[in-house]
C-alpha cells in the first residue's frame, strides 16, 4: 500500500498563504505590508485549488506564494520600517516635550532612509529585464511630472519626476531611439527602442490640469512612484554611461526658469571639462541660420575645413553627436538649399529606410512652431528625428533656434489655428506653397502644416506630401501605428464592391438578414425532384436582385428614401439569400456540423468557444465595414478616391 499522505503539509496547502497570515508572520501593519509588496513586486496568486490552499475553507481570500513572504522576512527594507517606527516614537517624544533642538538633531542624524537599489537589482537581475518593465514606470513618471502638489504629493517628488522625464527625453533624442508616436484621446503615446531592441511604450498626458478623483489612493501611487523613480534613475545612469555621458546632467537654473524645457539640461561627456551642450548647439545653429544663404552655398570641403579651424582643440574630444550633427547638416546642405530655392518641395529624396535613417527624417528641415502648438511634444519629436533647427514663438519659452517668425531659413511652419483667409483647402490640395505666397500673413518659401503632419511623417517613416495637412484642411484620419495591417479591420484598404447589395439590404431592410439565412438553412428543404434543378431559379433570382439594386440606387440618387420593403419583397429577399447560399457551401456547413458529432464534449466546447470569439471579432469588423459603406455611400462615389490616394 502506498504511504498515506498527510493533509495540509504539501502542495497547495503549503505553497500558499493568505494575506492575513502573511501580515501576521511579518509582524507589520497592513499599509507597511502593502508598501513592501509594491517595492518587491510581490503579487497575489490564484491557487489551483482554493479549498486546499485555504485549509478547507472556501471563502474568498487573497493568496500569496509562501516563499515570497518567506523571503520578505529577511528584507532590509522591513528592518528600515521598524527603525522608522522607533524613530517616529523618539521624534514624537521630543516634540511632545517641546525639545525642538533635540527633534531637529534626531531628524538630521537618526532618520532611517529607505534605499531601494538592492530591490531594483533583485527584481531585474539584468539590464534587459529592467528595460522590459519600463513602460509603466515612464507613464507614471510623466503623469506625476504634471500633477499639482498637495499634502500627499510633496513638490520634491513632482520635481524629481519632471527631471527624470526630461533626462529620458534627452537620452531618446540623443540616441535617436524614438520609433513611433500616436496622438490619442488620452494623451500622446511614444515608442522607443532602447538597449538593443527593447521596445518601450509610454503615454504622456496632454498639458492640462489633471482631474484627480477622490477615490484614488495617493499613498499607493506614491509608493509606486518611489520605486519607479529609483528604477528609472538607475536605468538612466546605465544608459548615459553606455553613451559616455555624465549622469545626472547639470541643470541650468536660468534656462529652466525661462521655460527652457529640454534645453535646461547640460549634457556632458565623461572626463571632459567644458563641453558643448544642447543650448550651445542651438546657438550655433542660430548663428548659422543668420548667415546669408549665399554663404551656405560654399563648398563642402571648405566648410569642413573651416569647422576644423574654428576649434582645433575640440576635434579630438568633441561630442560624437555634435560632430555627427554638423557633418550630417553639411552633407545634405546643398540639397537643402536647392529645395529651398525651388517652389515645389514635395518630392524630397529620402535616405534608405534603416534605423539610423529614421533618425534623420527631419534633418534638413527647419521648423517654426506657432504659439498655439504644443511645444514640448513637437520639440521632442522633431529633435528625435534629426531636426536641429526648431524655432518658436517667444511665448512658448526660451531656447528657440529663432523667435523671429519671418526667418527665411524656416522651411516648415506648424500652425494649428483656424484659417483667416478664404477657401484654403481648395487651393492647398494642388500647390500649397504657391498659395502661401498669395495669402495674407504668410511667409513665402515655407510649408504650412498642422501638427498631425509630424506624427504621420514619423509613423510613415518618410516625409509625406503636406497638401492634406494644410491649415484649415480636413485632416486625414490619424491611425495607430501599432495595428498591423491584415489584423481585423483595415481602414486604409479599399472595400471590395461585392456584397454591396447585401450590405445595403442589411442596412435598410430588417437587420436580421443573417438570422434569416440561418433559419432557412435549417428549415425543411423543398424536395428536389429529378426534373427540376436549382440553376434556373438562381438565375432568375440574381436578375431580380440586380433590378432591385438598380431601383434602389436610382432612389438614392433622387434623394428619396428607399421604399419600405413590402411583404412580397421580404419573401423575395428570403428566397434570394437561400439561393445565394450555394449548395456546396451548405454541404460544407453540414459536414462540419457532422464532424462535431464525433468530437469529445470538452473539445466541442472549446471549438464552439473559439468559433464564437472568432465570430465576434469578425462581427466587429463587419460592423465597421458596414458603417464605412454607409458613410461612403452618403459621401457619394467621388470621395472614395481619397482613401485610395492615401495608400500611395
Amino acid at each position, binding site marked *: 500500500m502506498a504511504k498515506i499522505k498527510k493533509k495540509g503539509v504539501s502542495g497547495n496547502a503549503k505553497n500558499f498563504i493568505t494575506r492575513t497570515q502573511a501580515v501576521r508572520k511579518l509582524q507589520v501593519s497592513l499599509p507597511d505590508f502593502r508598501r513592501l509588496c509594491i517595492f518587491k513586486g510581490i503579487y497575489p496568486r490564484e491557487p489551483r485549488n482554493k479549498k486546499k490552499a485555504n485549509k478547507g475553507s472556501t471563502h474568498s481570500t487573497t493568496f500569496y506564494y509562501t516563499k515570497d513572504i518567506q523571503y520578505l522576512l529577511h528584507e532590509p527594507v522591513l528592518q528600515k520600517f521598524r527603525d522608522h517606527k522607533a524613530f517616529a516614537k523618539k521624534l514624537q517624544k521630543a516634540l511632545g516635550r517641546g525639545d525642538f533642538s533635540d527633534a531637529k538633531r534626531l531628524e538630521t542624524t537618526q532618520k532611517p532612509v529607505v534605499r531601494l537599489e538592492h530591490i*531594483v537589482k533583485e527584481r531585474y537581475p539584468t539590464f534587459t529585464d529592467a528595460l522590459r518593465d519600463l513602460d509603466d514606470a515612464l507613464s507614471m513618471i510623466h503623469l506625476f511630472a504634471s500633477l499639482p502638489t498637495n499634502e500627499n504629493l510633496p513638490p520634491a517628488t513632482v520635481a524629481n519626476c519632471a527631471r527624470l522625464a526630461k533626462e529620458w527625453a534627452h537620452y531618446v533624442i540623443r540616441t535617436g531611439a524614438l520609433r513611433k508616436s*500616436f496622438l490619442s484621446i488620452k494623451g500622446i503615446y511614444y515608442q522607443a527602442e532602447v538597449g538593443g531592441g527593447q521596445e518601450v511604450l509610454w503615454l504622456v498626458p496632454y498639458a*492640462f490640469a489633471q482631474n484627480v478623483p477622490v477615490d484614488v489612493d495617493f499613498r499607493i501611487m506614491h509608493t509606486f512612484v518611489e520605486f519607479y523613480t529609483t528604477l528609472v534613475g538607475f536605468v538612466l545612469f546605465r544608459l548615459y554611461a553606455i553613451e559616455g555621458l555624465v549622469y545626472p546632467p547639470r541643470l541650468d537654473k536660468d534656462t529652466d526658469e525661462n521655460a527652457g524645457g529640454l534645453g535646461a539640461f547640460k549634457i556632458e561627456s565623461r572626463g571632459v571639462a567644458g563641453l558643448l551642450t544642447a543650448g550651445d548647439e542651438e546657438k550655433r545653429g542660430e548663428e548659422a541660420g543668420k548667415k546669408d544663404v549665399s554663404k551656405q552655398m560654399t563648398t563642402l570641403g571648405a566648410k569642413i575645413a573651416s569647422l576644423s579651424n574654428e576649434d582645433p582643440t575640440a576635434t579630438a574630444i568633441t561630442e560624437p553627436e555634435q560632430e555627427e550633427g554638423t557633418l550630417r547638416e553639411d552633407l545634405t546642405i546643398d540639397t537643402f538649399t536647392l529645395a529651398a530655392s525651388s517652389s515645389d518641395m514635395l518630392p524630397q529624396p529620402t535616405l534608405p529606410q534603416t534605423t539610423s535613417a529614421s533618425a534623420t527624417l527631419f534633418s534638413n528641415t527647419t521648423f517654426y512652431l506657432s504659439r498655439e502648438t504644443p511645444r514640448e511634444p513637437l520639440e521632442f519629436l522633431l529633435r528625435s528625428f534629426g531636426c536641429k533647427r526648431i524655432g518658436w514663438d517667444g511665448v512658448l519659452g526660451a531656447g528657440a533656434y529663432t523667435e523671429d517668425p519671418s526667418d527665411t531659413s524656416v522651411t516648415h511652419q506648424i500652425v494649428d489655428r483656424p484659417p483667416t483667409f478664404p477657401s484654403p483647402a481648395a487651393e492647398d490640395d494642388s500647390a500649397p506653397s504657391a498659395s502661401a505666397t498669395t495669402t495674407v500673413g504668410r511667409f513665402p518659401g515655407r510649408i504650412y502644416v*498642422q501638427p498631425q503632419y509630424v506624427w504621420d511623417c514619423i509613423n510613415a517613416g518618410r516625409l509625406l506630401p503636406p497638401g492634406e495637412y494644410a491649415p484649415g484642411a480636413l485632416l486625414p484620419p490619424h491611425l495607430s501605428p501599432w495595428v498591423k495591417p491584415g489584423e481585423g479591420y483595415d481602414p486604409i484598404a479599399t472595400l471590395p464592391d461585392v456584397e454591396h447589395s447585401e450590405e445595403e439590404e442589411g442596412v435598410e431592410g430588417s437587420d436580421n438578414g443573417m438570422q434569416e439565412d440561418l433559419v432557412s438553412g435549417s428549415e425543411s428543404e423543398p424536395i428536389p425532384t429529378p426534373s427540376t434543378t436549382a440553376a434556373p431559379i438562381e438565375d432568375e433570382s440574381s436578375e431580380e436582385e440586380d433590378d432591385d439594386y438598380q431601383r434602389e440606387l436610382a432612389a438614392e440618387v433622387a434623394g428619396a428614401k428607399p421604399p419600405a420593403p413590402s411583404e412580397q419583397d421580404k419573401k423575395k429577399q428570403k428566397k434570394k439569400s437561400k439561393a445565394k447560399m450555394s449548395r456546396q457551401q451548405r454541404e460544407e456547413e453540414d459536414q462540419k456540423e457532422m464532424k462535431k458529432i464525433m468530437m469529445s464534449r470538452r473539445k466541442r466546447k472549446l471549438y464552439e468557444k473559439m468559433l464564437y470569439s472568432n465570430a465576434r471579432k469578425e462581427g466587429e469588423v463587419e460592423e465597421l465595414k458596414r458603417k464605412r459603406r454607409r458613410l461612403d455611400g452618403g459621401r457619394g462615389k467621388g470621395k472614395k478616391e481619397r482613401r485610395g490616394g492615401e495608400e500611395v
Partner: protein
Amino acid sequence: MYPEIDPVYDSDDTDVEETNTIGNIPLEFYDECPHIGYDINGKKIMRPAKGAALDALLDSIEVPRGWTGMTDRNTGGDLMLTQEELEMVRRIQMGEVPVDGYDPYAPMVEYFTSKTEVMPLSAAPEPKRRFIPSKHEAKRVMKIVKAIREGRIVPNKPKQEEPQFYDIWADDAPPRPDHIMNIPAPKLPPPTHDESYNPPEEYLPTEVEKKAWEELDPEDRDKDYLPRKHSALRLVPGYDGFVKERFERCLDLYLAPRVRRNKLNIDPESLLPKLPSPQELKPFPTTTATVYRGHEGKVRTISIDSSGVWLATGGDDGTVRIWEILTGREVWKVKLGEDESVNTVKWRPGREAGILAAAAGDDVYLIIPPIFDHETEAASKELLSVGWGYAEVVKGDPLKKEPPAKWSKPSDKLADAGVAAIVTVRVLVKHIAWHRRGDYFATVSPEGQNRAVAIHQLSKHQSQSPFRKSKGIIQRVEFHPFRPVLFVATQRYIRTYDLAKQELAKTLQPGSRWISSFDVHSGGDNLIVGSYDKRLLWHDLDLSTKPYRTLRYHQKAIRSVKYHQGGLPLFCSASDDGTVQVFHGKVFGDLMENALIVPLKVLRGHAVKQALGVLDVEWHPKECWLFSAGADGTARLWN
C-alpha cells in the same frame, strides 16, 4: 474587675495581688496541706483560717454582699463579686459588649490619612557630595574632549553621502532562468485606431452605441473610452480618467492575482477530427426520392418485405397500407381498428410467403395481403392454417397455465380483407420482432409486467411468455441474427438471454435514462441503442458492457435506430427534431480494431407535428435506400 490605673511615671505596683501559681491543678490536691499553693516568689500561700461553725451558721443566715459560694483560687478564701462584676457577667451571658457605654458604631477617626504630606518626614540636611562636581564625569568628559582635540571625534559630521545612482548592472550577471512561479506583469496593449484623436469616421459610435455604453456599468464596459473625433489638435481636451486609469493599473500590478493561462492560437478547424470524406463512403441516401401520402394522422410504423418491393405502413388512422416502393402508389389497405392506431407492422422474413404482422391495440393481426402471386399466397395461407388443428389438441390440458395470448379466426369482413389470424395478447402491443426463420415472433407490451414479452409460434398457434418476473418496463426485444439469443431492452438496461440454455447471458449498461429502441448488427457483435435523452450509443458486445461510443447530436429524443442488414456499412437514427442522421458504421473482422463511425448526412424533410418528428426508419434489404415514417402523415424513401 481591676481598678483603673493611672499610668503615670511613678505609679507603683505595691498593690499587686498575690497570685497562686499552681496553674491547672485542682485545689483539692492541697486539701491535706496547710497551704494552698505558691506565690510568684515561691513562698507558700497559707490557707486562710476558717471560722467556727457558728460563723458558718451566721453566714448561712445572712448572706454577705457579693457572696457567690465559690472559693477564690488565689487566696483560698470566699470569692466575692461586686455588683459591677455581676453586671458584667450578665452582659457576657447575654452576648452583649461587657463594658457599659461602649459604642460599637462610633465614627472612624483617621489616624493615618490618605493625604500625602508636602514636607519630607526627614529633615536631614543635603549631603555635601551632592554639591561637588563628579570626578568620574569629569574624567569621561575629558576623554571626549581629548578625542575631539585629537580629531578622533568630529562633532556634527555630515553623513557619508552615498552616490544616489550608480551602475548596479556593472557585473553583467547572466540572465536568470525563468522560475515557474514567477509571472511577469503583462504589458498594456498598445492603442488601436479608435483611440486616435482623429479616427476614421466608421469608428465613431452611433447614438445607440453611445447610449448603450453609457448605460453599462463602468466595470462591464469592454473599453473605458468612447471614440471621439476632433478636427484639430488644439481642440483635444484633457482626458478625464487619466489618473484613475494609472491608479487602476497600479492596483492591477500589486493586487490582481496573476495566473498563467494558455492561449490556444490555433485554427479551430484543426480541432475537428480527421474523418474520411463522405464522398468516399458513397453510396448512402441523400435526398427524398418518393413520398408516400395517404395516411390520416401520424404514420407510426413502417416495414419493407424481404423481396424489397412492398412497403407496409401503419398509422394513427388504424389502417395498414401497402405501397409500391418506386412509384409511391398505394396498392392495398385494410382498416384494422376503429379507434385504435396501428402501433407496429412487420413483414415475416423469408421470400416463400408474404405474411404481415400488424399490431393494433391488444391484437396482432396476421395478414396475407392479396398482392402476391397465387403460389406465394397459397404458401402463406398454408403456413397460417396449419396451426389451427394443433391448437385444438392442446387446449384440453387443464394443468397448463393459461397462455399469454389467444389465437382466433377473424371475422368474415376482416377475412375478406386478407387477415388470416388474430392473436389477442390482452395488453397493448407496441412492438413485434420476427425470428429469422419466420416461425416465431415476439411481441412487446410495455404495460404487461411479467407478461410484457410473449413469443408466438406460427406453426402451432401457440404463445408463451418466457419470463416469470418483470424486470422493469420492457421497451423492445430483438432476436440475434443467427444465434439463439434474445435481446430484451428495459428502460435502462439491455439483457441478453441465451434461449438454448434458458438463462441470462449478459446485461448491457448503456447509461442512458430511457432507451427508446435498439438494433443488432448483422454480425451479431455490435448494437446501437437510441434513447429518449437524445443519445445514440454504440455497444461492442465483445468489448464491454459499457458503450464504445456515446454520440449526442439530435436536438430531440431519438425514436428509432437501424442498421442496414443487407451488407452495407450504414446505420441511421431518427429523432423527434424531424431529422434522420445517416452514419457510416464499419465493423472490422479484426477483433482488435474498433468500429469506424463517420456521420454522413442529415436527412431533413419530415415536418415536426405536436413535438413529434420521425417515428420509425427502415433500411431496404439490399439497396442503400432508407424509408422513414413521420408524424406529418407521410412516409418517405431516401436514396
